[in-house]
C-alpha cells in the first residue's frame, strides 16, 4: 500500500520534468507510505517513477520501489495489494520465472512479462500501477476493477504525469490548480467529484477497470476496459444447484480468506451493522483479529459492538471521539482530503484509532449494501422509473424537497438514481458557484447522460441496474475514495472483502434475484440482526454548529465548508 507517481515525456519536443518535481510529488505522499520511498529517472530523463511505501507483505528492503525485475528490463511502481499473488507466483515459477523478493510487486512484473495486458484478468486485488518496459519504451498503466485504489493523470500534450493523489500532482508545481467547473458542479450535485473529473481542470481520474499504454509521440494508446460491473450482471447465468444462502457465505468466506493475506496483524472496522459484524464473525474464525469501534456519546454503537467482540473473542478497542478532537483535527482533515467530499470523517477517526493501536491493515464492510441491496434506492429507483406519477405525488405529500424534480428526472434508471442520490439540484448551483461556472460545469458534466452510460450493457434486472449504479457511482466516487485518503492519512491500509471483482462475478447469478442481505445477517445474534440500519457517521452538524438550511440534509452546509477549503 503506497503512493505512486510516474511521468513520461512522450513528445520529443516537450521538455522533460525535473527531478525536483518528481521528488516533490513523491514527498506529498509520505503519509501514504511512511516506511520507504524511492525515485528513478531514466538516463535520458524522459521517464520517471516515484513511490512511497507502506510495507505489508515482505517487510524487507527487497520490497523497495521502484522495483526492477531480475533481468533489469522492467520497472514498476505499484500501489495496492494482490491477494492471490502466491498462487500467481507458483504458476510463474512453474513456467521458469525467477524472483528476487517475496513481494506481490515482483509478481506483477513477471506476470506482465508473461501475459502483457492480459495479466489483468488473473489479478485479484486492489491496485494502481505503472510498469516501464525498457524493451519497447512503453509504459503500461492499470487501475483495479472497482477503483478501490486511486490513480490520476495529467496530460499536457507533451508529458503525461500520473499519481495516486490529485494534490500530489499539484505539489510538483507543473500542473495547474485551476478549478474544473464540471468537478465543482459534480461535487455539489453528488457530494463527491464524479470520475473521470477531478476538482482540477487539468487532472483526470484513470477509469476503474481499464488499462492503457503510454507510447513515444502518441501518448495514451491501447485503452482497454478489462472489467465492467454492468457486463458481469449482463452475462450472469443462473446457477440453480446450490442454496443461495450457503453459496453466498461460502464465497464471502473465501473472499475474506484472500483479504487476510498479510505479514502484519489485521484489524477490522466494527460498526455493529450487519455487514461489518458478519465480516468480523467470518474473519475471527480465520485469524486473530483486532476490532475497532468509534464512539460519539449520543450516537454510540459501541456497547453493541463491544458485546459482539467479546463473544467473538477479538481484541477490541472502542475509540471515543469528542467534539473538541474533531475541531482540532479539522484543518488536517481538510489538508489530507484529496478532493472535496462530504464524507470520510468517520474513516479518518477509525483509521486514527487503528494506527494508534499499531495496526497497519483493517478490513471494512464497505460494499455490502451495494452487493446485497441494502440501500433504499434498490426499492425506490425501480418504483420511480415505473410509477413516476405515483412517486411524485407521494413525495409531494411528504413535502419532500426533491418532489418537483421527479417528472423531469425519472425517465430512466440512471436519472431516477441521480434523483435519489443528489445533494443539490442543478438549478441551485448558480447560487453557490456563480452563474458562469455553474452553467459551464453542468454542460461539461452532462451528468444525466453519464449516469445512464454506466448501464451498458444492460445488467438484466432492476436489482442488477441499481447495484451497478451504486457500485460505479456512489461507492466509487464517495465511499472508496474517502476510505482511501482518510485511511492513508494514518498509514492504514483498508481492505474490502465485499468489494471484490471476483466475488461479484461469482455471486452475480444469485444477486440478480435480489436475495442476499438476509443471508449475511442470518448467523448474527438477534441484537445485531434485528436493529434498524443506522449507518456509520459522525454527528457533523451538531458538532460543527452549522446551521442546516432546512431543505434536504445536514450534509449540505458541510459541503460548503469543504468547498471553501478547495476553491
Amino acid at each position: 500500500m503506497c503512493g505512486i507517481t510516474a511521468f513520461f515525456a512522450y513528445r520529443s519536443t516537450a521538455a522533460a520534468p525535473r527531478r525536483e518535481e518528481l521528488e516533490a510529488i513523491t514527498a506529498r505522499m509520505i503519509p501514504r507510505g511512511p516506511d520507504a520511498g524511492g525515485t528513478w529517472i531514466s538516463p535520458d530523463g524522459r521517464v520517471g517513477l516515484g513511490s512511497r511505501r507502506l510495507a505489508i507483505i515482505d517487510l524487507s528492503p527487497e520490497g523497495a520501489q521502484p522495483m526492477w525485475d531480475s533481468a533489469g528490463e522492467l520497472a514498476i511502481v505499484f500501489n495496492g495489494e494482490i491477494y492471490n499473488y502466491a498462487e500467481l507466483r507458483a504458476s510463474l515459477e512453474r513456467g521458469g520465472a525467477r524472483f528476487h523478493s517475496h513481494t506481490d510487486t515482483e509478481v506483477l512484473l513477471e506476470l506482465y512479462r508473461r501475459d502483457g495486458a492480459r495479466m489483468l484478468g488473473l489479478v485479484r486485488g486492489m491496485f494502481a500501477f505503472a510498469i516501464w518496459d525498457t524493451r519497447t519504451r512503453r509504459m503500461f498503466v492499470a487501475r483495479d476493477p472497482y477503483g478501490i485504489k486511486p490513480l490520476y493523470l495529467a496530460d499536457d500534450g507533451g508529458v503525461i504525469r500520473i499519481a495516486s493523489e490529485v494534490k500530489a500532482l499539484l505539489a510538483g508545481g507543473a500542473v495547474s490548480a485551476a478549478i474544473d467547473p464540471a468537478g465543482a458542479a459534480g461535487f455539489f450535485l453528488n457530494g463527491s467529484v464524479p470520475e473521470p473529473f477531478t476538482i482540477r481542470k487539468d487532472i483526470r481520474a484513470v477509469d476503474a477497470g481499464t488499462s492503457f499504454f503510454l507510447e513515444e509521440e502518441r501518448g495514451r494508446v491501447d485503452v482497454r476496459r478489462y472489467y465492467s460491473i454492468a457486463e458481469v450482471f449482463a452475462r450472469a447465468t443462473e446457477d440453480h444447484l446450490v442454496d443461495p444462502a450457503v453459496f453466498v457465505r461460502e464465497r464471502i468466506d473465501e473472499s475474506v480468506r484472500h483479504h487476510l493475506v498479510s505479514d502484519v496483524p489485521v484489524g477490522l472496522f466494527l460498526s455493529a451493522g450487519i455487514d461489518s459484524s458478519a465480516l468480523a464473525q467470518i474473519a475471527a474464525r480465520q485469524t486473530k483479529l483486532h476490532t475497532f469501534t468509534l464512539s460519539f456519546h449520543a450516537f454510540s454503537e459501541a456497547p453493541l459492538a463491544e458485546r459482539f467482540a467479546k463473544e467473538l473473542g477479538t481484541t477490541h478497542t472502542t475509540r471515543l471521539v469528542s467534539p473538541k478532537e474533531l475541531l482540532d483535527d479539522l484543518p488536517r482533515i481538510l489538508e489530507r482530503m484529496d478532493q472535496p467530499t462530504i464524507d470520510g470523517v468517520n474513516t479518518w477517526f477509525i483509521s486514527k484509532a487503528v494506527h494508534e493501536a499499531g495496526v497497519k491493515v483493517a478490513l471494512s464492510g464497505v460494499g455490502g449494501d451495494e452487493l446485497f441491496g441494502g440501500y433504499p434506492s434498490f426499492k425506490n429507483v425501480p418504483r420511480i422509473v415505473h410509477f413516476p406519477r405515483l412517486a411524485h405525488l407521494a413525495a409531494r405529500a411528504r413535502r419532500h424537497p426533491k418532489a418537483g424534480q421527479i417528472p423531469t428526472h425519472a425517465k430512466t434508471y440512471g436519472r431516477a438514481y441521480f434523483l435519489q442520490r443528489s445533494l443539490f439540484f442543478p438549478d441551485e448551483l448558480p447560487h453557490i458557484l456563480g452563474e458562469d461556472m455553474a452553467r459551464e460545469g453542468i454542460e461539461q458534466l452532462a451528468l444525466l447522460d453519464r449516469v445512464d452510460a454506466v448501464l451498458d450493457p444492460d445488467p438484466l434486472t432492476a436489482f442488477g441496474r441499481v447495484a451497478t449504479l451504486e457500485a460505479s457511482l456512489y461507492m466509487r466516487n464517495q465511499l472508496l475514495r474517502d476510505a482511501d485518503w482518510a485511511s492513508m492519512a494514518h498509514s492504514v491500509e483498508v481492505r474490502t472483502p465485499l468489494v471484490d471483482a471476483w466475488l461479484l462475478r461469482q455471486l452475480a447469478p444469485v444477486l440478480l434475484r435480489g436475495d442476499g442481505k438476509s443471508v449475511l445477517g442470518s448467523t448474527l445474534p438477534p441484537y445485531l440482526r434485528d436493529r434498524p440500519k443506522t449507518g456509520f457517521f459522525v454527528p457533523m452538524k451538531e458538532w460543527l454548529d452549522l446551521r442546516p438550511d432546512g431543505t434536504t440534509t445536514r450534509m449540505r452546509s458541510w459541503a460548503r465548508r469543504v468547498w471553501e477549503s478547495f476553491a
Partner: protein
Amino acid sequence: MSIIFLVTDAYGGHGGIALFNRQFCEAIGVPITVIPRVVRGEIRDVPPNVTFVAEAAKSPLAYLRALTAARRSKPELVICGHLNLLPVAFNRPLLVVHGYEAWKRRRAALGKCRGVISVSALTRDRLVGWSGYTGPTYVLPNAVRLEQYGIRPKRADLVERYKLEGKRVLLTVGRLDSGERSKGFDEVLDVLRELPEVVVYMIAGGGNDFTRLQKKAVDLGVANRVVFTGLFDERDKPDLYNLADAYVMPSRGEGFGFVFLEAMACGVPVIGSKADGGREALRDGELGLLVDPANPAELRAAIVETLARGERRVPPGLDYFSFGKFAERSRAILSAAGIAFTS
C-alpha cells in the same frame, strides 16, 4: 451382524454414485444386503459378501416388498445411499450424500440419521449450511483403482476416428445435461478461440444438451476444433483419457469429481474448479491446477500453462485416493457408527 444398504443403483449401474456404492460394499468386506431402485445394465462382479436384491428394481411393489423384508430382518445398521431415499429409510440410518442433491434446501428428515457420510467436505458443509444438521459427519472420497488405468500410447483407431493427429487435446468427460449445465463445457468453449489453432476440445459423453453446445461451437467459430464423442463404450474409457493432453473441467456441480482421479490415473494433467468438489479431488491444487469457472482469464492461463509443460505422469499424491485408503476410511466410519469388525 447385518447391514442393509439402500441405493439408487450399484451393480449394473453407470456413473459416479453407482461406482461409489460398489466400492463401498467391496471395501467393508462384511456381509451387506444391497437394495437398488434401478438396474439398467448387466449385473457383474458382485463380491461374495454382497447380497444384491436386483428384483427390488423391477417394480414399485417389488421395491416395497424388499423394504418390508429388510425391515423384518431387524438389521443392525441401515445405510441410506441417497438423500432421495431418506423417506423410506428406517432404523436411524447412516446417510450418504454425493453432490448437489444435498446442496440446496429441501425437505429431509436429517434428524433421524445417526450420521452423514459425504464424498466431500464441500457437500458436507453445504448440507450443514442449509439444514443446520448437528449429528456426526464423515468424509469419504471416491477411490480410484490405479491398476485399471495407466499411461498408454494413443490408440490409432481413436486418433483417426476423432481426427486428432498432430493436435493438442483438451478433454472433459461427463453427461451433457441441459437442466444442469454445470460441467464447464461452456466455459471451455468460451476460451477455445483464444487458444492456438492446434488445440482441440473433446467432449466425451451423451446427453440432451448436445444440440445447444454444438450450435454454440458454431457460433463461436470453433466448430472445427470441437469433437463430440457421444456416448462411448465404458471399456474404451482409459484409452479415451489417454488421448488427452489435459483434462479440463471448470465445473460448478461436482460433489467430488471422480473423473479427475481417472484422468490422473492415466497420467493426464488436470485442471479443476475452485467452486465445487473438484477442489478436493485435486487435493486443493496439489494434484492439478484449480481455476475459478467464472473467470475465463484464469482458465485460459491454466490451459496454456498445462499444455506448455506437456508432462504426462501419475502424480504420487494420487495415492491418497487409493482403494486401500478408501477401505480403511470406510471401516473406520462403520466402527464409529457402532459396527464392530473382527478382521
